[in-house]
């Protein structure tokens, strides 16, 4: 039997969630965030810590022990903040008994993220690259006044691209989650809310915020200097618009497939889940 204890602490707009998973025998568990916001997992050298995959954490509860998990999120606390969505017995209670020490080399997980996590991010530290701050919005928006060629790009660009890239994985995870939800539908009354993957919700929310910031910025510019320099935020908004259009095409295609028949049951449900995003995404794209 697996039990989950939790505590949430909120300060300065961030909720810190602490979870303790206890079990009467060793088992492998998957814990998923249930708060309405993106998960900010603990990171090592910029990569999510071992076990984190999008909104979910997978780990092993040791024999007569407890598994502790912590993460941050901008979402407001709720009960429960997370749920154990799957449990399977761990075959080997004392996994990896090899205490072999390789000369001065850390154990490296053979995945791209694992390599960077274990060996370090080779990219130049942020402080090493002088990027002036523009506007009152602070660290989120950095200008490209000093940048002269296409070789460089803004952090907003980076963020947008990273997000759209990581979107792929949560998408797969989201499919799995939908199935899980469907199986435990009886205990999950708010199924409709959970069908839209958290990654999609948080992406749309971020886009919304960038649009808000951009409209505020435009007003500022008109009142003040009047200079119409292309800012990092402007580039990010343009990228958002492109991404929204692309997502709309994709969703239209999927909806057409869903309506065209031949798609039923679990697949239909998944497509429907994606479809729920449809009215929200393009509508916001067209607003500007």
């Amino acid at each position: 039997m697996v039990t989950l204890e939790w505590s949430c602490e909120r300060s300065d707009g961030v909720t810190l969630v602490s979870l303790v998973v206890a079990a009467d025998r060793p088992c492998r568990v998957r814990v998923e965030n249930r708060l309405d916001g993106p998960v900010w997992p603990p990171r090592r050298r910029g990569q999510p810590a071992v076990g984190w995959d999008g909104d979910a954490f997978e780990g092993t509860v040791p024999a007569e022990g407890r598994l502790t998990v912590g993460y941050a999120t901008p979402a407001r606390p709720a009960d429960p903040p997370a749920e154990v969505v799957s449990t399977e017995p761990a075959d080997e209670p004392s996994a990896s008994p090899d205490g072999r020490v390789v000369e001065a080399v850390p154990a490296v997980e053979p995945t791209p993220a694992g390599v960077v996590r274990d060996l370090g991010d080779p990219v130049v530290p942020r402080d090493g690259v002088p990027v002036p701050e523009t506007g009152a919005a602070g660290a989120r928006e950095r200008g490209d006044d000093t940048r002269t060629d296409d070789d460089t790009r803004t952090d907003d660009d980076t963020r947008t691209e990273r997000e759209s890239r990581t979107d792929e994985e949560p998408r797969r995870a989201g499919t799995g989650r939908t199935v899980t939800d469907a199986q435990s539908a009886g205990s999950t009354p708010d199924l409709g809310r959970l069908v839209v993957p958290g990654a999609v919700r948080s992406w749309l929310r971020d886009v919304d915020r960038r649009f808000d910031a951009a409209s505020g910025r435009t007003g500022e510019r008109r009142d003040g200097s009047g200079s119409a320099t292309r800012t990092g935020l402007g580039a990010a908004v343009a990228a958002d618009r492109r991404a929204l259009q692309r997502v709309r095409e994709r969703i239209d295609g999927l909806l057409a497939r869903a309506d065209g028949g031949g798609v039923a049951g679990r697949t239909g449900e998944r497509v429907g889940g994606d479809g729920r995003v449809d009215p929200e995404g393009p509508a916001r794209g067209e607003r500007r």
Partner: protein
Amino acid sequence: MILAVVGGKGGVGKSTVAYNLGAALDAVVVDADLAMADLPTGRGPDLHGVLAGRAEPVEAVRESGPVALLPCGRSLAGARACEPTALVAAVEAVRDEYGRVVVDCPAGMCGDVGLGLLVAEACVLVTEPAPSALGDALRARALARELDAGLAAIVLNRASGASPTDLVARELGGPVTTVPESTAVADAQAAGVPVAVHRPESPAAAAFADLAETVARACGAAGSVA
């Protein structure tokens, strides 16, 4: 075939070996030193652009020189904008198009060395007959083992007749090719061409041809086993 050229210590000749090996194997040489690139670059898309998602890996390959190159880019801002983990997919895309890729890994034991080894099937370990270089080579060797990049060959660079070739072969556990200290290598680097083009009769040119054969044999054997 994807081959990583590693060494641990800086200045032992990794880029020189990668470039000349690329020439002998007719491979694309990828300069994976994201922060401090060595191999020549020019105008057009580079690895920074590829890892930032702004260019396709294959379109960033320069075929104009004597050796096909995927140069890295040298601006700090470009390095900052990279997503280093994208290196794996980028190198694989170049391999799918060109067949053979030599990844010139940077010095040290940081993530970019690890990513080069992760994507590679085998590695070439470059070292010099000096205690500091050999110590770093041992660590690079251990990292390669950790990431499953088999050791195809060891290059003992700037070697003389008195160099401890047997000791190096035993300690690092692989076949050793010695590349003699020679002006032919330096001249060829300065001219921006492989030694085999610049001074085909030199012992260094013969050594690189030898190395290419050893590597091809090692990788061919690994391929047939798999």
